[in-house]
Structures are given as structure tokens and as C-alpha cells.
């Protein structure tokens, strides 16, 4: 009988319960999908890093020879060579000697480490009209061993192993042939490379795995392909030391920079991102789950207070507390269990696609998604128990009341604030009532605020991330007319060119205040690459003694125009003034007068250049020809992926907001049923009643939204700061006025989507029925 009574009270609230169910599903879904997908990546990745001896740090070396090394080349080859690349081209044994000297010196200075040189070439090639960039590597001995997880290692000069993401994106299978620089390579297998190998490729955080990749070649296959080599050192710690402080004083002159894997955007960030993703998922689902738990509590206490008379009589008749409580607890199980089960099931199904999004961006080993008992318990049993305990507590508190007191209707004590004399004097009656109706039920108000605040903060964050990559490249790309870049052979020099070109020097690994950046030598009167500070053309400042830094460097190092910076190139060190800040995000660069830079490189000539920038397609032969537009397009494709994710997040947050608001208004109408019908009987029109009981939520939703703006601002500031200090990445993550406006529209959208049902409910509330209920109470 009592159970039947509980079921009936449920049926009356079927809409509210449906919404509650959705919230419970959402909470379980987020937790389960995020947890399963991340754990299917985390564990296998950790094993891989261990077993294949992946580097703990990476040493960027100067590709320029030191004085002694140069003397050595003179004594062996009777010609003074200046770069590692040149030595590699002329005498491989001498090259090996120099590298061995460097590694040994390194390991003496830093005796807690073991390092190994890693030689790579970056080659561009065209595949079906698109420009692809591949960093090719040889198999290594001890550190960064290659993990072939399908097929086998390349055995001879005709074989290559590829990254599976790249192969899949380009429809390449094992056994297929790939043509590089006119040579055919058969794909022998799929190899797994960690992300830090990619990080150097274009210095970009987002790498398009379908056009930028890594290839593993046999030694002979590697030698056959033309291109400048870069050499760096991969290192591991062989003793326990304080890793973050261990390299603080860089002592060797050939070392440009040492980056710990954990501080590298593309590799350390994997952990941060996985950890962050997991924490974020947990936080979100906890917030949503606690809203659900609160709502269950509210609902139970509503039903109980509606039935206090009946419960009083039951108690008076001699029913025991537990006999009264059990049906209500059963009822909690009936509401919560299906939602939790569906949430778990959907979350499990979504884990696989979610995992694929991750590994589509990061190259990570992963395992299949499998059920895990602890997760099952955490996502189903724990919330259910919490709800039961809370429900029990709410019911028990009521049952402690004496039966006689229960049989008398409970009066809501008049709230002090709405009757405060000051408020009364200044605020009309109905206005005070409106606010009282929203604020009176504090837990419900809290659920409302939490729901809308969470939703609006997430929406604002997503909005600030929409187009962030476009914003990073667009401003810069629109300011220049460079469509093609030709990279000249460092040994052969640049070919003659019939197109109008700008002669440019690009010099990677120049130190600016101890951090490696790229120096770009430009002529002040160049055709295609003007420089801009905000909207002012500052190309002429290349005539001044000093450098023009990019926004990235300015933000990262907190440098302003007029400051002095330390510039180091090989063994040269000098102090230069910053004469401008170029409006450009992305990889850290500075611009300097080309002739001045030429003098630094050659020591005696102002004519040197190693890259040409052009507006029309180049006619000469270059080691690499870069189609700028193509790269921009690639970046945009990835930007779009980011946008899609932002839009999904906006949609999910919006649904959360809508569901919460629907739930809250519907519960509020249930609670104020009598008051509403009273207003109806007195002759208040539906629109007047709506304005008392519902429209106020629009005001509060907007207020909550306004409150979300500073919170989001601060959070974005923290995220930007964190990314800048931890990974040296500058994202223009900030709320623009347009985001604020769009956010407001979305917040109002939440309101207008949520409210029609409440309005309908309010209008449908039958007077006759209401009066009858009056009469019978």
C-alpha cells in the first residue's frame, strides 16, 4: 500500500523525474567515458615509455662548430668547415668523432645522464597534390628504441616504416610503395614514435598527422635522401636527481637548450592533458552528480511535506519508522538506478570514439576499452548509496517530528529579508514576491545557480577557444604576401630565380635570453613580408640597430620595446635592443636586418641568404619548397577539429543548462502549485502569473552569466599563464566582446529553450482541480 503511494507520487512528477534521469545519465556518462578512454591510453603509454627506453630529456645542440672543432676540420680536411651538416657531407668519420666528443663531454659534465645522438632529416614531398613533411630517422641503439607494432623494421635501402596514424589517414598499407625524391620505398611496417619527435617539426603544437609525420629508414635508405641533417641528443637519467633543477647552469658551449620531456608541449603535455582531462571529467561529473543528489533530496522532502498529514496518521496508527521509510528508499532506487545504468552504458560506448580523438592528435599506444569493476562500482554503486543515505536522512528527520505536529500543516516562516523595512519601502510587493519565490528554497536555488554557472562558464571557455588557431595564424598570414618559400642547399647555395623573391636568412636555435628561438633576417625594403606592430607598419625599423620580436616572445619573456635582450649564436654573444613587437603568435621568432645577420653567419659578407620568399611559384631547384597556403590549410583543418570540439562542448553545456532550468522551474511550479492557483482564482492573467513565477529566472540567468564572465576570464588567464610558463606556448585565449555577446545570446537561449514547458505546465494547471485540492486539504 505504502509502496503504491510512493509510486503514485512519482507518477505525478514524471516530467521532473525524466529530467532528473537525464542529469544522472549525463553525470555517469561523462565520468565513465572520460575515465575509460583515458585509461586505455595511459597504461599502455607508460609501459611503452619504460620498455622502449624513451628519452627523459632532449638536448638541442648548436649545429655550428666550435672554434676547436673548426680547427679540427682544418687539420683533417685542410679546409675550415663551419657546420655539422657540412662535416657530415664531407667526412662521416670526422663527423662521428665530433659527435662522440660532444656526447662524452656532456656525460662528464652531467654524470647522472646517458645521451645518444639522433640524426634526422626533414623532407618535403608531394602526395596527390598536397605537400607532406616527413622527418626521417635511423634506428637508434639504446635510447628511443623503435617500437614496431605491425610488420617489421626496414631492412634494406628500399624499405620504410611509417606512423600508423599517417598511414591510415593516407590509405597506405604495409607492402604499399611510397615515392620520396624519386626513390621508391616499400612500407615494411608501422612504427610507434613518441610525440616529442614531432614537436620539432614546424614547432607547432597541433600537428596534422595526415601530412606531417615521421619515417624510419635503414641507414642506407636514410643516406640516399637529400636534405640537411639536424643532430640532437636524446638523454635519460641513470641516477635519481632533482630533474627540474639538474641542468640549471648550462655549461657546455655546444648546448643550446635542454628540454625535459615532461615540459614539452607535445609529450609532457600528453600527461598533463590526460591528467587534466581526467580531473576535468571527474569534476564535471561530480558537480552534475551532486546536483542530481540534491534534486533527489529536494524531491523526497517535497513529497514528504505534501504527505506529512498522511504520514502523521500512519505514525499515530503505530507504523514503525522503517516501514514508512523503506518505500521511499525503494523509490530512490527506482529513479536513480536506470539513469546510472544508462549513463554507464553510454559512457562505455563513447569511450572508444573519445579515445580515437585523442590518439588522432597525439601518437599514443592504446588498448581496447574494457569494463573495470572499480569503475563500475564508483559510477553506479557510490552515487546510489549517497542518494539513499541522503534520502534516509531527509526522511528520518521528518519522522522524528511528533505525529500530531505532522498532522498540522507546516507554515513557511516569513522570511526576514523580503519583509525588511527598507526593501518594503523601495520595492513593490509583486517584485519582492517574485524574488522570494526563487530564493525561498535555498537548496533548489543552489542547484539552479550551480547548473547555470557551470554551463555558462563552459560555454564561455569554449567560445574563447573557437578559432583560436585561426586567430593565431590568420592575423599574421593576412599581413604577408609570401606564398612560397624555397630552402636552399647549405652546401650548394641558392639557385638563380626568375621570380621576384625576397632573400631571407632563417636561423634556428639562436638563443634569446637563454631560450632557443628562430632568427629571421629580412631586408627593410622586402617585397612580401612587412612587419606590423598592432596596425602600424614597422618594417622600416629593420634599419635600426636592434631586433623585432614576435608577440609570443614578448608575452613569454615579458619583454617590451626598448628592453635589451641577450642574443647568442654559436660562440657569439651580444646584447641587442628590442625595437618593435611583431603581431605574430606561434613559434618564437625574432626579425633582424638580413645584412647584419649575414655578417654574423659569414663574418665577412652581407650577401648571405639561405631561404627565398616569393609570391608566385618558384622556378629554381630547392631542397625544400614550402607552399605556405597549403600549410595554412592544414592548420585550418586541425583548427576545425578544435572548433567542432568546442561546439560539442557548447551544445552539451547548453543542454545541461536547459535541463537544469527545466528541472528547477518544474519543481518550483510543483511547490508553488497552491499559490499559483490562488493567483489564478483571484483573476491574475497567465502572463502576470508567468511574470511572477517564471520570468524572474531570465533575470537570474543573465546575472549568473555576468558572474561567469570574470570567473572565466580569471580561469583563462591561469590557463594561458600555465601553458606559457610550463610549455612556452602562447595562446591568445581571452574573452572578446563578441564572445561576451554570443555567450549572452546562448544564456538567453538556455532560458527560452527551458521555459516553454514550464509555461505550458503553468497554463495547464487547472483551476477547478486546484480548488478541489484546496477543499480537500
Amino acid at each position, binding site marked *: 500500500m505504502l509502496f503504491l503511494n510512493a509510486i503514485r507520487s512519482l507518477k505525478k512528477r514524471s516530467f521532473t523525474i525524466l529530467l532528473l534521469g537525464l542529469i544522472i545519465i549525463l553525470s555517469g556518462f561523462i565520468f565513465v567515458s572520460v575515465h575509460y578512454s583515458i585509461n586505455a591510453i595511459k597504461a599502455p603509454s607508460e609501459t611503452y615509455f619504460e620498455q622502449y627506453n624513451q628519452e627523459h630529456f632532449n638536448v638541442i645542440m648548436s649545429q655550428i662548430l666550435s672554434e676547436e672543432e673548426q680547427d679540427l676540420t682544418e687539420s683533417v680536411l685542410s679546409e675550415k668547415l663551419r657546420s655539422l651538416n657540412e662535416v657530415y657531407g664531407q667526412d662521416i668519420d670526422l663527423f662521428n668523432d665530433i659527435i662522440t666528443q660532444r656526447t662524452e663531454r656532456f656525460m662528464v659534465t652531467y654524470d647522472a645522464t646517458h645521451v645518444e645522438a639522433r640524426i634526422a632529416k626533414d623532407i618535403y614531398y608531394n602526395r596527390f597534390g598536397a605537400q607532406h613533411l616527413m622527418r626521417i630517422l635511423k634506428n637508434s641503439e639504446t635510447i628511443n628504441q623503435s617500437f614496431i607494432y605491425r610488420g617489421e623494421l626496414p631492412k634494406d635501402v628500399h624499405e620504410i616504416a611509417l606512423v600508423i596514424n599517417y598511414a591510415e589517414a593516407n590509405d597506405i598499407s604495409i607492402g604499399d610503395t611510397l615515392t620520396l625524391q624519386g626513390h621508391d620505398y616499400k612500407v615494411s611496417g608501422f612504427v610507434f614514435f613518441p610525440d616529442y619527435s614531432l614537436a620539432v617539426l614546424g614547432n607547432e603544437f597541433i600537428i596534422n598527422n595526415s601530412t606531417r609525420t615521421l619515417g624510419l629508414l635503414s641507414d642506407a635508405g636514410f643516406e640516399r635522401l637529400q636534405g640537411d641533417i639536424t643532430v640532437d641528443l636524446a638523454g635519460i637519467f641513470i641516477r635519481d636527481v632533482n630533474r627540474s633543477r639538474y641542468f640549471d647552469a648550462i655549461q657546455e658551449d655546444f648546448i643550446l637548450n635542454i628540454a625535459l620531456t615532461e615540459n614539452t608541449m607535445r609529450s609532457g603535455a600528453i600527461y598533463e592533458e590526460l591528467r587534466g582531462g581526467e580531473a576535468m571529467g571527474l569534476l564535471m561529473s561530480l558537480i552534475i552528480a551532486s546536483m542530481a543528489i540534491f534534486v533527489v533530496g529536494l524531491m523526497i522532502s517535497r513529497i514528504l511535506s505534501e504527505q506529512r498529514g498522511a504520514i502523521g496518521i500512519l505514525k499515530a496508527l503505530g507504523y514503525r519508522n522503517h516501514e514508512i521509510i523503506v518505500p521511499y528508499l525503494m523509490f530512490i532506487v527506482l529513479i536513480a538506478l536506470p539513469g546510472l545504468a544508462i549513463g554507464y552504458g553510454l559512457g562505455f560506448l563513447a569511450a572508444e570514439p573519445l579515445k580515437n580523438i585523442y590518439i588522432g592528435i597525439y601518437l599514443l599506444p592504446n588498448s581496447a576499452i574494457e569494463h573495470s569493476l572499480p569503475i563500475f562500482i564508483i559510477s553506479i554503486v557510490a552515487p546510489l548509496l549517497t542518494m539513499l543515505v541522503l534520502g534516509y536522512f531527509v526522511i528520518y528527520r521528518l519522522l522524528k517530528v511528533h505525529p500530531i505536529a505532522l498532522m498540522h500543516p507546516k507554515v*513557511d516562516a516569513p522570511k526576514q529579508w523580503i519583509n525588511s523595512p527598507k526593501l518594503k519601502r523601495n520595492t513593490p*510587493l509583486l517584485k519582492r*514576491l517574485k524574488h522570494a519565490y526563487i530564493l525561498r528554497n535555498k537548496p533548489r536555488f543552489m542547484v539552479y545557480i550551480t547548473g547555470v554557472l557551470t554551463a555558462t562558464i563552459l560555454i564561455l571557455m569554449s567560445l574563447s577557444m573557437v578559432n583560436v588557431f585561426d586567430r593565431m595564424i590568420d592575423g599574421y598570414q593576412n599581413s604577408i604576401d609570401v606564398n612560397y618559400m624555397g630552402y636552399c642547399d647549405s652546401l650548394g647555395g641558392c639557385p638563380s630565380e626568375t621570380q621576384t623573391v625576397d632573400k631571407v636568412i632563417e636561423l634556428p636555435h639562436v638563443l634569446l635570453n637563454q631560450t632557443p628561438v628562430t632568427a629571421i633576417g629580412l631586408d627593410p625594403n622586402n617585397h612580401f613580408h612587412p612587419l606590423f606592430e598592432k596596425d602600424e607598419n614597422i618594417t622600416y625599423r629593420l634599419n635600426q640597430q636592434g631586433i623585432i620580436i614576435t608577440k609570443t616572445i614578448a608575452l613569454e619573456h615579458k619583454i617590451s620595446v626598448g628592453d635589451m635582450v641577450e642574443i647568442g649564436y654559436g660562440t657569439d654573444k651580444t646584447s641587442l635592443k628590442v625595437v618593435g613587437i611583431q603581431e605574430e603568435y606561434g613559434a618564437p621568432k625574432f626579425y633582424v636586418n638580413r645584412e647584419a645577420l649575414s655578417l654574423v653567419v659569414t663574418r665577412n659578407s652581407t650577401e648571405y641568404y639561405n631561404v627565398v620568399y616569393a609570391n608566385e611559384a618558384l622556378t629554381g631547384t630547392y631542397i625544400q619548397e614550402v607552399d605556405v597556403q597549403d600549410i595554412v590549410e592544414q592548420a585550418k583543418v586541425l583548427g576545425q577539429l578544435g572548433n567542432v570540439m568546442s561546439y560539442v562542448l557548447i551544445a552539451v553545456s547548453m543542454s545541461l543548462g536547459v535541463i537544469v532550468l527545466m528541472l528547477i522551474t518544474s519543481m518550483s511550479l510543483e511547490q508553488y502549485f*497552491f499559490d499559483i492557483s490562488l493567483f489564478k482564482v*483571484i*483573476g491574475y*492573467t497567465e502572463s*502576470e502569473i508567468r511574470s511572477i513565477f517564471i520570468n524572474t529566472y531570465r533575470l537570474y540567468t543573465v546575472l549568473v552569466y555576468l558572474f561567469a564572465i570574470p570567473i572565466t576570464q580569471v580561469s583563462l588567464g591561469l590557463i594561458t599563464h600555465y601553458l606559457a610558463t610550463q610549455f612556452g606556448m602562447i595562446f591568445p585565449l581571452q574573452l572578446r566582446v563578441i564572445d561576451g555577446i554570443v555567450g549572452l545570446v546562448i544564456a538567453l537561449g538556455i532560458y527560452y529553450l527551458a521555459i516553454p514547458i514550464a509555461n505550458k505546465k503553468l497554463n495547464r494547471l487547472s483551476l477547478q482541480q486546484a480548488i478541489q485540492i*484546496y*477543499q480537500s486539504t
Partner: protein
Amino acid sequence: MVIKLTNVDKIYVNGEIKTNALKAVDLTIESGEFIVVLGPSGSGKSTLLNVLSGLDVPTRGTIEVHDVTISNMSQKELTKFRRDHLGFIFQQYNLLSTLTIKENIALGAHIAKDSFDIDELLEKVGITDQKDKFPHQLSGGQQQRVSIARALIKKPLILFCDEPTGALDESTGKDILKLLNTLNSSYKTTVVLITHNPGIASMADRIIKMNSGSIVDIIVNKDKVQASDIAWS
């Protein structure tokens, strides 16, 4: 003539169960009359009142109030009609617990085109001293006075009362009836009052007796008595 019912039926349908709560009711009420509706429980009194007042719509038949046919009005028009012309008092006082007495009455004034002065009305219903208290600080009789004042403040043409004294003791009940009587004579407000209590009928101009959904008798009361003199049961 204020209200005219012609051949009114009201059938409640609840799934399989149909209840014929009003059967072919014809009734005319004149302006300024004090009408008492009597009948056993379940005879259709409340249904009659709801239909008369436009709180509910009849299944069949027409209802005219002041020559306006309200039986085919939309909800919206009915609301407007109630708002402008009708007042209601129920057995339950239905006051908003978070508002003071004066504010509860102001709720009625708020939507009126023309309203009485609140203080004058408070005086009239005898609760001037209580005006700043909250409902739960008042006795049942006092609360019923508040709901009467709330109904009257907008100067209704007709006042509908469904068991207004049902929850009150004899002396308080008589006080309320006296008040209704006074209002009826001083403001010429038409009063339709439903009750179980046959004694109350003696203060009516006309008595309408109902049984199982039909009007079985209409008695014109020639010997109206004062509220204080009725026999309470």
C-alpha cells in the same frame, strides 16, 4: 438579473468513470441578492459555483452574467471576466504565508481597475490591528476576514463563497456571516454562498436546494433573520 443558467450540464470524465455532477440546471440570480445553496455532500454545490463563476466550463448549456455569455468564453476572457467582476472566498483561507495581512489584501487590489481603500476595508472587516502580522499569527476567523477583504477589495459585482464558515466555530462563523450580510447590503454585492449548514439559509433572500446534480427546490425567504439569530448546526 445578474446570472442566468440555462439547461447546464457538467459531466466529469475520469477514464472509464463519468460523473454527472450537474443535470439540466436552470437558474436566475438577481442583482444584489443573497443566495444560499444547500445540499448534501456530493450533490454538486461546488460544481455549480465553479461553473457559475467561470472557474470551470459546463459540458452543456449557457451561462450569462450581466448579459454576457461566459459559457463559451476562452480561458483568457474568463480570466479577464473574473478579474473585473468576481470575488471568491473558500473554506481554506489560502493566504500567502510570506506576506503580511495588508499585503495579502493588496494582491487583490493590484489587479483591480477600481478598488476600495485598504485601510477602510481593514476597518470594515475588523482586522485593522492585525494588518502587519503574518497569516500564521492570526486565528482562523481572522484569516477568513482577510480572505474576505482580499476578495472585496476590487469591488466585485458578485461574491462567491464556498463553505466560508466550514472551518470556524459558531461565534466566529456568525461574525463572518454578519460581515457578509453587511457587505451585501451596504455595497449591493451579490452573494452566492454554499453551505452544509441549513441554519445559514435563514439569512438568505433565496435558498437553492440541490440533490445529486439537480436543483430540487428554490425557496424565497420572506423572513430573513440577522446572522446573529440563525440556528447554528
